[in-house]
């Protein structure tokens, strides 16, 4: 670490850290953004200047201490700067998920009592205008990209705000520095609304100390510095992006690269070649699915090379990465593989230079995780929450175990409650839920322990294992332990299954809803001459049911190995004719299944699963991207499964 410790001691807030960066790293790249096909670099000095202009502009609009600034849009440098600008004035940025519909956004705007909002483009401005008509407090709307906004009245452009700011700075040269100097580490830094699988979102208030110390600790153990590169492509409203791109970006001085658009992430990744990388399991899985599909279409020689070397990589790649002993012949072969297969593949994926890669959020499948590690990419799991300023545990370098989420980061303590729930305490623990003291008291004890809501245990080596959400763990009527996510994850590890929802608590046996993966199953269907016109039709095909039944049977065999889970095998399942979608409220914005809501919405399907029928009529409303509604309707088949017996029992019979 090349942190200036003296400066770090005096720089407590992000605006103060930005000033430090402009001093010590003035000409180093801070942000890059691809604009008109070319990567444009902004140095720390430029960022500092731009941010100050925007801050002064906000001040001239009446933005002051304690004011909230709603920020909504894709990852754009100017939106990150606006966060810092708001903080310069003692205000609190509130990033909002850019794909939220107006009603969800309205709740946040109203709850946060925001008077100001910054939107990336017309799409977001339209939503905010709709909200402004309902929520009286919201007054000032600023946009970054003016395209299509020609005919709108009463909006301000980012540039105009900066212009006003420069005028104010000329008139009152000391104003901004006085404001910045007022900031303290214990002040509120940001409010992040957690999507939550139940109930209304809660506004998690994190202080500068929370974010700074959590980000610093993790950066120190990973050795992040000002030469590192990051591609920010996950929502700005998500705590992970806030820590990686914003907090760690400022603290370590790493370069934050903003993709051109959501659709170009893969190309941009390749052009940037980040050294520090985060991807949720679903994206890691998509990447592999695409690689596999393209390999299927490759020539015979390439296919053979890929298979042979990937088999070798699976065998020794992980060991090489962790520094465990590997035979000379395998080492040499691996080198050759690196030249012929792994290197080019990593290059294509844009992962050649990755030093540290994290995944988190959901359980990651063993095949997926091992795929990356075997290629020599230092993929690690981390366990964290918004309430912890992300970091609770991380896989230590060279001690990576698939079935755990790693060891605690410095200054964080773990405790397992009597009911199996994981509790943690540390410097990153959140200040409060905004305007919700009851929820704060429920989650955080007086002495700073946070109830994570996850069930887990710590093994003898100090690694944390997470089993499921504590409240989701239930029992079948015969007393068998039922951990739905455990089963769902096993199902989701099959490439053909995109999402699964298991039911079984207080029931006689376990059943499941399956969502097929359109890319993978579509490709399979093409290869097997199964014709289909829509997702719904594909989902209802008998052949597809057979395909999924194989996967379910495999999961049942796995479960049969574990005496605790043997009774929790999936006995009946159906394939949902529509994709579970956040727009319909079935998933959270971070794509976690909202169990309660689904159980309620599809009560008729669940009744059929437990009622012994073989088909059930399905009719539900779907929300299109533009907010309009439509109906999906049809008959859904239900498939019965045989349950597997554990091997010894079979011999006895």
């Amino acid at each position, binding site marked *: 670490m090349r942190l200036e410790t003296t400066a770090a001691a005096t720089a407590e807030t992000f605006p103060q850290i930005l000033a430090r960066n402009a001093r010590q790293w003035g000409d180093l790249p801070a942000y890059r953004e*691809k*604009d*008109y*096909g*070319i990567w444009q670099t902004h140095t720390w000095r430029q960022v500092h200047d731009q941010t100050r202009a925007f801050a002064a502009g906000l001040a001239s609009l009446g933005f002051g201490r304690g004011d909230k600034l709603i920020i909504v849009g894709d990852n754009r440098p100017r939106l990150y700067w606006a966060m810092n600008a708001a903080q310069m004035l003692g205000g609190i940025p509130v990033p909002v998920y850019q794909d939220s519909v107006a009603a969800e956004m309205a709740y946040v705007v109203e709850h946060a009592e925001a008077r100001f909002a910054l939107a990336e483009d017309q799409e977001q401005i339209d939503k905010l205008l709709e909200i402004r008509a309902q929520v009286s407090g919201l007054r000032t709307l600023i946009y970054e990209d003016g*395209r*299509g906004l*020609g*005919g*709108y009245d009463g909006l301000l452009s980012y540039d105009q705000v900066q212009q006003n700011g420069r005028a104010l700075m000329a008139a009152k040269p000391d104003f901004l520095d006085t404001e910045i100097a007022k900031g303290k580490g214990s002040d509120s830094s940001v409010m992040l609304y957690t999507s939550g699988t139940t109930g209304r979102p809660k506004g998690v208030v994190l202080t500068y100390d929370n974010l700074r110390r959590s980000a610093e600790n993790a950066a120190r153990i990973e050795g992040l510095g000002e030469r590192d590169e990051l591609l920010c492509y996950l929502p700005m409203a998500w705590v992970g992006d806030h820590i990686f791109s914003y907090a760690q970006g400022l603290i370590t001085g790493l370069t934050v690269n903003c993709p*051109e*658009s959501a*659709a*170009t992430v893969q*190309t941009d990744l390749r052009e940037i070649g980040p050294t520090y990388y985060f991807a949720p399991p679903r994206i890691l899985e998509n990447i592999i699915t695409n690689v596999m599909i393209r390999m299927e279409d490759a020539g015979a020689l390439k296919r053979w090379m890929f298979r042979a070397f990937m088999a070798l990589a699976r065998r020794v790649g992980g060991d090489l990465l962790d520094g465990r002993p590997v035979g000379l012949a395998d080492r040499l072969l691996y080198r050759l593989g690196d030249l012929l297969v792994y290197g080019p593949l990593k290059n294509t994926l844009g992962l050649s230079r990755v030093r540290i890669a994290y995944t988190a959020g959901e359980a990651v499948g063993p095949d997926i995780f091992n795929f990356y590690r075997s290629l020599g990419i230092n993929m690690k799991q981390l366990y964290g929450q918004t309430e912890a300023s992300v970091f609770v545990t991380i896989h230590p370098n060279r001690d990576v175990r698939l079935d755990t989420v790693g060891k605690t980061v410095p200054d964080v303590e773990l405790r397992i409650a009597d009911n199996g729930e994981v509790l943690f305490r540390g410097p990153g623990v959140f200040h409060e839920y905004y305007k919700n003291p009851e929820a704060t008291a429920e989650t955080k004890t007086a002495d700073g322990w946070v109830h994570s809501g996850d069930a887990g245990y710590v093994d003898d080596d100090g690694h944390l294992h997470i089993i499921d959400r504590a409240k989701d763990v239930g029992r079948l009527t015969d007393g068998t332990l039922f951990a739905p996510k455990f089963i769902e994850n096993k199902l989701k590890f099959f490439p053909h299954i995109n999402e699964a929802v298991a039911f079984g608590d207080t029931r006689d046996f376990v059943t499941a809803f399956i969502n097929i993966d359109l890319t993978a199953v579509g490709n399979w269907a093409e290869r097997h001459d199964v014709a289909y016109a829509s997702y719904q039709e594909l989902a209802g095909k008998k052949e597809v049911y057979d395909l999924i039944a194989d996967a379910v049977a495999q999961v049942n065999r796995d479960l049969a190995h574990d005496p605790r889970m043997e009774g929790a095998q999936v006995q009946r399942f159906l394939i949902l004719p529509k994709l579970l979608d956040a727009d319909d409220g079935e998933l959270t914005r971070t794509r976690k299944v909202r169990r309660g809501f689904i159980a309620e919405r599809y009560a008729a399907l669940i009744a059929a699963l437990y009622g012994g029928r073989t088909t059930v009529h399905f009719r539900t409303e779907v929300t*299109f*991207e*533009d907010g309009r509604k439509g109906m999906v309707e049809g008959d859904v088949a239900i498939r019965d499964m045989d349950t597997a017996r554990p091997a010894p029992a079979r011999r006895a019979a």
Partner: protein
Amino acid sequence: MARAAHATGEVLLSLENISLRFGGVKALTDISFDIRKGEIRAIIGPNGAGKSSMLNCINGFYHPQEGRITYKGVTRRQMRPHQAAEQGIARTFQNIALFKGMSTLDNIMTGRNLRMKTGLLAQALHWGPAQREENEHRAFVERIIDFLEIQHIRKVPVGRLPYGLQKRVELGRALAAEPELLLLDEPMAGMNLEEKQDMCRFVLDVNDQFGTTICLIEHDMGVVMDISDRVVVLDYGKKIGDGTPDEVKASPDVIAAYLGTSH
């Protein structure tokens, strides 16, 4: 909707008593209408009504036997398509006419062709002024790519793209010529709802941001009524209606042509 922000009322193109025959077939009979600067003008009508023939007359591909076409105050009888292009008329086609093997970027670059001044040899050698010029054109094309939100397919051969995106690339190529008058032949045909909505937004944005006058042929009545300022209705080569969407919708002749009448 904040429509017609750019419509000035000044006539950009006027067609007077146009008649077009192919042998004995009368494709267009005595048609007159005008296109005003800055407006979105739709031409509608049942199949075979002569809509595409009309566009072909405007951009000089067909030469009507009778009638006068006045564009920017200049009346002409005969004009070749490339002359039309030089005067600021660009178009897209009902059946996509792109270079399938070339990338999106290169396809749109071809739209800049008319604006390139350096010679073939200099361009081939990519030398001196030619290089500078290409950079300028590339920057312009990148603005179009950004505008149409097709960054992710910048380097993908057009033949590999889905239909809706190819249509968008074709629009991009037409825009690359910086047209004053843009002719769109069924820009939304064969698209799904979402693609149609995107395309509508792009058409409106082109009109709004660049002030480009647009004349389009479209079958989707919802689209036409939503985005156009004025509509002209053709049936069997004759004009049977002309006016704002509301006026046209209320016209008994138009209703008869579309829904049929009991004679």
